[in-house]
């Protein structure tokens, strides 16, 4: 079995290599002297070729890839255009590599190394360990070991002042867009790779993937003549290349350097994005890079240059360093051996065969071959909308009385099949909008690391349920609130190591960030083992700020929720109050704009827990359909606390503030929905009606409606410009019978002024 597997893996790799070489051949047909057409695709394919496992490749193959890399770097680092010379070389290369591929499986004679090519710069891999008795061509053997990377000679010396770049928006618009999109992905994979490195610094796959990301970035930037980012990427690439070839062992200095470099590149990318959107178009972009380049060069020489005074990203005291120096150099060298070790090696055990990618790898970038399609999100949204309509139309057909009167078993079966297919289609379409929450979570790792370092705290962040999927629109908007809350946990929750030890806690604090599906929604929890919230101090602070009355009776959870009130915290309370405060009102507003809720639990001295409940998607809500007279309205189920038929005596009028309904001893203000909306109602007596208690933030309100008509998932539709001045309705939805239902804005209803019982009919107010 084992040999079979190995053979089939080898065969599939050979197949892939053949395919890629063919693609290079196709691209070569488009190459013109003095033009850059096809340069990037060829670069891409060569990168892919380099990625193929090389353990048992013939030496000629490895050497051939190296030489192609050298030429590509020459072009990318230079004019960015093909010269006649290079075209000739590449055409020869394509022919050469094709014949290597032909000879490879037969184990026949390898074609001779073309005499006009430079001799391979580095020693090629040892003889193939597989059955193929390929003989290495003569020319290969003489190379010196560990020659400096060919591209390092092109390293530009940064001038004293920071170089600036200018975008050629007119000519390169499309290319810049592509470059920008690609850069974002590359930067993300760099950042994630660095996080993996912090725990497993010797992970060859990860080092390689970061190396490649910088390399690709360099290629793209060089191609667009963006010299400053190109040079920076080049230096970092050189540095990582040394690490990759085990000539340098990785340490926290290098990791910080990579992060600083990635930050600078990100600034470039952001500036490019801004200009692409027409902000300051054409203005020079300056991002300080010379300092990082200087440090990278020093690090490449083996010197560790300390970062300038205010560290860009200081190494955190514990988490990183403890993991790093422990790595034995030998282990680091192992995965790289296959490529750079001059001595032929017998096939090492499983470890070096590169077939099972480490689990960390998957977190980094996923399998590039897994087949993804980039898609305009507007198209996706409209697809989801249309499918939503299809489902509604389908249920209209099924519910049509004339259709229902058809007596035919076959027809019923067909209808059922139609329902099943539309249901499946809807689920699939919805799932296309779903993305794992991982992206939003992993940013927090970086945040915690930086924050902890700057405050000399030791904090570890544990992530759970990163694979939980939710609507991409929600994931995008979740970033800000998460940052606020995590920041608060580190700033105010986790104590200093000394304080923690004194209390018998481990010196390192733990923040747990988890996501899970629950009750048709998503629950996100942020738990820390810090000092928790102090109800007495929060109460005192709220009193001082005039947010509560001195005689207010508040239970603990009501006190905790005070921190969400705007005006609860100002800058000076941040350090002095044990509770959290900064921007918590913003957090709640953001969560509520996503139609979510947030709750707090806390045990003094043991930590706090924030729970965020979110809907799975913004396009569909679970709604309660209520009837008021002839009208039907939708109330988002997430806002409903309870609903019941009032008993006589439950409703009373309080002079000056309208009616209240008393629910289990609590007085909840009541709003007669029909009267409030200026619409006729059926029930003349509250006892014949239903009260739906809705909440928004801390406030609750009972809505008096005629009847409950049922729960329904509805696709939310905007009401458009005509109704933009009203805030009574949050939107509309097409109901099962094809008519339109209006979705009530619970927030507005809860805050609406109380009604006096005497007021006869509410006068409809006109739009402003």
């Amino acid at each position, binding site marked *: 079995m084992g040999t079979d597997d190995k053979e089939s893996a080898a065969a599939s790799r050979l197949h892939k290599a053949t395919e890629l070489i063919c693609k290079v051949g196709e691209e070569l047909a488009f190459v013109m002297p003095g033009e850059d057409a096809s340069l990037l695709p060829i670069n891409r394919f060569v990168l892919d070729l380099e990625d193929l496992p090389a353990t048992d490749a013939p030496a000629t193959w490895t050497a051939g890839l190296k030489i192609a890399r050298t030429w590509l770097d020459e072009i990318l680092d230079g004019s960015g255009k093909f010269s006649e010379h290079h075209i000739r070389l590449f055409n020869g290369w394509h022919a050469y590599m094709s014949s290597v591929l032909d000879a490879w499986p037969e184990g026949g004679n390898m074609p001779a190394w073309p005499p006009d090519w430079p001799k391979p710069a580095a020693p090629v891999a040892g003889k193939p360990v597989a059955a193929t008795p390929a003989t290495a061509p003569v020319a290969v053997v003489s190379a010196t070991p560990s020659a400096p990377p060919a591209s390092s000679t092109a390293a530009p010396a940064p001038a004293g002042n920071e170089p600036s770049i200018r975008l050629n928006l007119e000519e390169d618009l499309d290319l810049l867009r592509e470059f920008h999109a690609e850069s974002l992905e590359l930067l993300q994979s760099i950042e994630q790779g660095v996080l993996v490195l912090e725990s497993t610094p010797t992970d060859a796959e990860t080092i390689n993937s970061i190396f490649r990301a910088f390399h690709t970035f360099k290629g793209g930037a060089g191609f667009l003549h963006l010299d400053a980012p190109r040079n920076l990427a080049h230096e970092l690439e050189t540095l990582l290349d040394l690490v990759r070839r085990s000539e340098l062992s990785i340490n926290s200095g290098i990791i910080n350097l990579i992060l600083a470099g990635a930050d600078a590149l990100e600034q470039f990318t952001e500036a490019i994005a801004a200009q692409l959107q027409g902000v300051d178009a054409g203005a020079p972009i300056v991002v300080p890079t010379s300092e990082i380049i200087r440090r990278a060069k020093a690090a490449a020489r083996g010197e560790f240059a300390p970062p300038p005074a205010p560290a860009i990203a200081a190494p955190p005291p514990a988490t990183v360093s403890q993991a790093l120096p422990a790595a034995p150099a030998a282990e680091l060298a192992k995965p790289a051996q296959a490529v750079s070790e001059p001595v032929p090696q017998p096939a090492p055990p499983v470890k070096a065969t590169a077939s099972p990618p480490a689990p960390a790898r998957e977190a980094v970038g996923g399998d590039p071959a897994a087949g993804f399609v980039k898609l305009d999100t507007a198209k996706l949204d409209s697809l989801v909308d*249309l499918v939503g309509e299809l489902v509604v139309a389908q249920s209209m057909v099924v519910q049509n009385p004339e259709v229902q009167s058809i007596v035919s078993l076959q027809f019923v079966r067909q209808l059922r099949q139609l329902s099943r297919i539309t249901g499946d289609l809807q689920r699939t379409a919805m799932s296309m909008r779903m993305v794992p929450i991982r992206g939003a979570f992993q940013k927090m790792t970086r945040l915690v690391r930086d924050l902890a370092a700057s405050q000399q705290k030791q904090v570890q962040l544990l992530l759970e349920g990163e694979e939980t999927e939710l609507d991409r629109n929600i994931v995008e908007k979740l970033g800000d609130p998460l940052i606020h809350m995590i920041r608060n946990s580190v700033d105010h929750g986790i104590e200093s190591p000394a304080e923690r030890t004194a209390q018998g806690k481990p010196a390192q604090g733990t923040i747990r960030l988890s996501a899970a599906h629950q009750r048709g929604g998503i629950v996100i929890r942020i738990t820390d083992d810090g000092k928790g919230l102090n109800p007495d101090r929060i109460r005192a602070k709220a009193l001082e700020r005039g947010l509560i009355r001195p005689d207010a009776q508040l239970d603990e959870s009501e006190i905790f929720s005070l921190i969400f009130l705007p005006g609860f915290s100002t800058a000076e309370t941040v350090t002095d109050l044990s509770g959290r405060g900064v921007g918590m009102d913003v957090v709640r507003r953001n969560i509520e704009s996503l139609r979510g809720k947030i709750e707090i639990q806390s045990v003094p001295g043991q930590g706090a827990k924030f729970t965020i409940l979110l809907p799975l998607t913004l396009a569909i809500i679970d709604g309660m359909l209520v009837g008021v007279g002839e009208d039907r309205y939708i109330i988002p189920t997430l806002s409903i606390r309870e609903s019941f038929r009032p008993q006589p005596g439950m409703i009373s009028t309080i002079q000056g503030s309208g009616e209240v309904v008393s629910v289990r001893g609590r007085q909840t203000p009541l709003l007669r929905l029909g009267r409030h909306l200026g619409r006729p109602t059926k029930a003349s007596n509250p006892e014949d009606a239903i009260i739906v208690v809705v909440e928004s933030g801390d406030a609750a309100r009972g809505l008096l409606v005629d009847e409950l008509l049922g729960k329904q998932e509805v696709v939310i539709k905007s009401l458009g410009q005509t109704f933009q001045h009203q805030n009574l309705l949050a939107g509309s939805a097409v109901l099962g019978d094809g008519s339109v239902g209006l979705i009530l804005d619970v927030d507005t209803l809860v805050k609406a002024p109380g009604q006096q019982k005497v007021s006869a009919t509410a006068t*409809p107010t006109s*739009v402003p």
Partner: protein
Amino acid sequence: MTSSPPNANSSLAKAGRYLTFSLGAESFGLPVLNVREIIRLCPITPVPRMPEYIKGVINLRGTVIPVLDLRAKFQMPVAAYGERACIIVVQLRNPAGGSTLIGAIVDTVEEVVQLGETHIEATPDFGGSPGTQFILGLATLNGGVKTLLDIEKIFLEDGPIVISQTLKN
């Protein structure tokens, strides 16, 4: 088009195709270019706390669009909708780009007519009376006078407008 150069004071209607319809005894026309489709009167979901002329919203094959009552908008006497009442779905260009669909309830839709420049006269000036800015011009056709409406201006204007007075000759 060969229309005369734009006049600063009056927006002269252009020759072209118009959809004509009636409200009560009066007859109107609007540029066919603005008309997306004509649908039969269907159940309208009323939107609370809206001016009387906004009847509510309907589902136009998945898009929720507002429906206006043109009689109410023009402050004409209210009458029950007859058998032949229709909703004309009008497409309006947004100043900010894109377009909006709005339905307008009319008593009857008459026909689509081709109006040449000879048929169209500029809006008579009734001594600065309100409403003239909503009128593209007057067309005389088969002995009757049709008021050609500037539908975009009408729908962009919040609140009811006075238009029928301008026609009392």
